């Protein structure tokens, strides 16, 4: 079995059909079609302003699409608040700037949603939180506040916080691009581990090493469109479109 199909089942987790979105007059997403199966790891890349964040933010309705269909775990995203709440419970998200809650300790950050959204008893939620904090290798920071942690530690807390909700899908929006170089690895390691455990992941990142290690598919976006979609080796070694080639030459030149 190749890395591309490892742990992937036939169950469709996310489906985008002809999704279009506008900011006022500005057409940010153009006819996006994408199917993600359970256990797949998708890496999304593309130049700044190409609509990568917008696309993955549509998947948990942080942004609203105006045309087309988005289904997550067979639930369609509409204005129905019930559906949105169901989907947000199933989909975890990690942000570029961590967005931890600064007035709560690390442990409280992790327990908040399980307690208030899933109605988990506090004791149980704390035990789960400690388990995930151990997995991201910072159980000793549980009683500190986010402001007392380094960027890499904060991002790992953010990942643990999402995992505490036991999500089916994880979305990452440039999780390492606000970090100092020496902290990038500690976050990527956690993400790689997560991928190896079979988590369904969509990850906006320009970390090409990460893409090569774990991705089943790499998606290249430009101008609100999906330009190219391929397995990582083909994508990097043998890009098809001119725009992809140009983009790759630019990021590899760094």
């Amino acid at each position: 079995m190749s890395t591309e199909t490892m742990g992937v089942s036939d169950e469709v987790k996310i489906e985008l059909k002809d999704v279009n979105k506008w900011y006022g007059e500005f057409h940010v997403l153009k006819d996006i079609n994408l199917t993600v199966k359970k256990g797949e790891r998708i890496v999304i890349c593309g130049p700044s302003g190409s609509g990568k964040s917008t696309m993955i933010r549509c998947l948990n309705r942080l942004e609203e699409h105006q045309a087309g269909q988005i289904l997550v775990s067979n639930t369609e995203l509409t204005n129905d608040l019930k559906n949105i709440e169901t989907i947000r419970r199933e989909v975890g998200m990690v942000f570029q700037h961590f967005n931890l809650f600064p007035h709560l300790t690390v442990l409280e950050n992790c327990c908040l949603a399980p307690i208030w959204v899933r109605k988990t008893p506090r004791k149980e939620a704390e035990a789960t939180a400690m388990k995930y904090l151990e997995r991201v290798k910072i159980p000793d920071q549980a009683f500190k506040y986010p402001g007392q942690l380094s960027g890499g530690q904060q991002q790992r807390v953010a990942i643990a916080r999402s995992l505490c909700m036991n999500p089916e899908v994880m979305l990452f929006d440039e999780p390492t691009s606000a970090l100092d170089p020496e902290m990038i690895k500690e976050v990527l390691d956690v993400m790689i581990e997560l991928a190896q455990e079979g988590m369904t992941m969509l990850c906006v990142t320009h970390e090409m090493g990460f893409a090569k290690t774990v991705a089943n598919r790499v998606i290249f976006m430009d101008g609100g469109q999906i330009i190219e979609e391929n397995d990582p080796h083909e994508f990097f070694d043998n890009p098809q479109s001119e725009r992809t080639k140009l983009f790759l030459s630019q990021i590899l030149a760094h």
Partner: protein
Amino acid sequence: MIINDDKLPDLPPPPSTVGVIGWLRTNLFSSWLNSLLTVIVGYLLVINLVPLIDWAFLTSDWIGETREDCTSGGACWVFISVRLDQFIYGFYPEELYWRINTMYVIGVILITALIIESTPKKPLIAAFTLIIFPIIAFYLLYGGAFGLEVVETHKWGGLTLTLVLACVGIVASLPFGVLLALGRRSEMPIVRSLCTAFIEVWRGVPLISVLFMASVMLPLFVSGETHMDKLVRALIGITMFQSAYMAEVIRGGLQAIPKGQYEAAMALGLNYWKSMGLIILPQALKLMIPGIVNTFIALFKDTSLVLIIGLFDLLAIVQAALSDPKWLGYSVEGYVFVAFVFWVFCFGMSRYSQGLEKKLHTGHGAR
């Protein structure tokens, strides 16, 4: 190349920078201009403060029954002490003073418990203070249940009335203010325009005219049969007015919370009210403490405006006492006393907010 492996000993700082002399030197006499200013300000303080202290304390009279007891030429505090009951209890029947006193005792115990750092079960006490205590206070003051005889509100007055107005205004305007601020930021156009209109209307009108309208115009609109108490009308007016101000202070705090916090809360599946209650408001309220307390202090002082609709708050009752022919000519003592009482309460609030701010800042580190 320089290598310095010897650990240098820790020396004490030079004597001219520490102690009283050091403090004086750095703060008062650091340059010839500063020294000059220190001398001038010191001189002005002495020539003004000395007579004031002399008037208020050294040559003042404290004990007595009538103005004939004021003989030493300084302040005549006898005027205050003779009238003190009235200044505190208004026209409340004397044999029922115990009811007001009970309320004060409970209130002071609760507030002390809330201020002391180590009190256990603080949230419970806070909830009791905000929800149960007002009910107890109402029945103690007004009566009408538990065998307590009714004391109509027109008999309320003095400091008690001032505190009733201020506390009701403070306790009621905060939740209304939060709701109005959230409404003004809502994505629902109707809610947003209603809240914006409400805030702008109330903010644009002076409190004095709000009180006037509440006392003169409201009865015209409310159908003839239902008689609404004058104090209740004033309380509604003050609450509306203060809610509008509070809403703008709170909206300012809400705006300071980064968008990422809302997004993280939403992404975790928290609905609107939970995100607000658990994530946004706790952070925003902390930022807003100085603004909120500022509004409270303004409200506390503004309560004295009720004298124009015929309610006898502390200021009004002292003024009334001043026109007593037996005590003509002691207005300075009267106003100094009122100012002092107001100052004590406002300064107390200010100190409490500073303490609260400091406490809430511990442990959060940078960000």
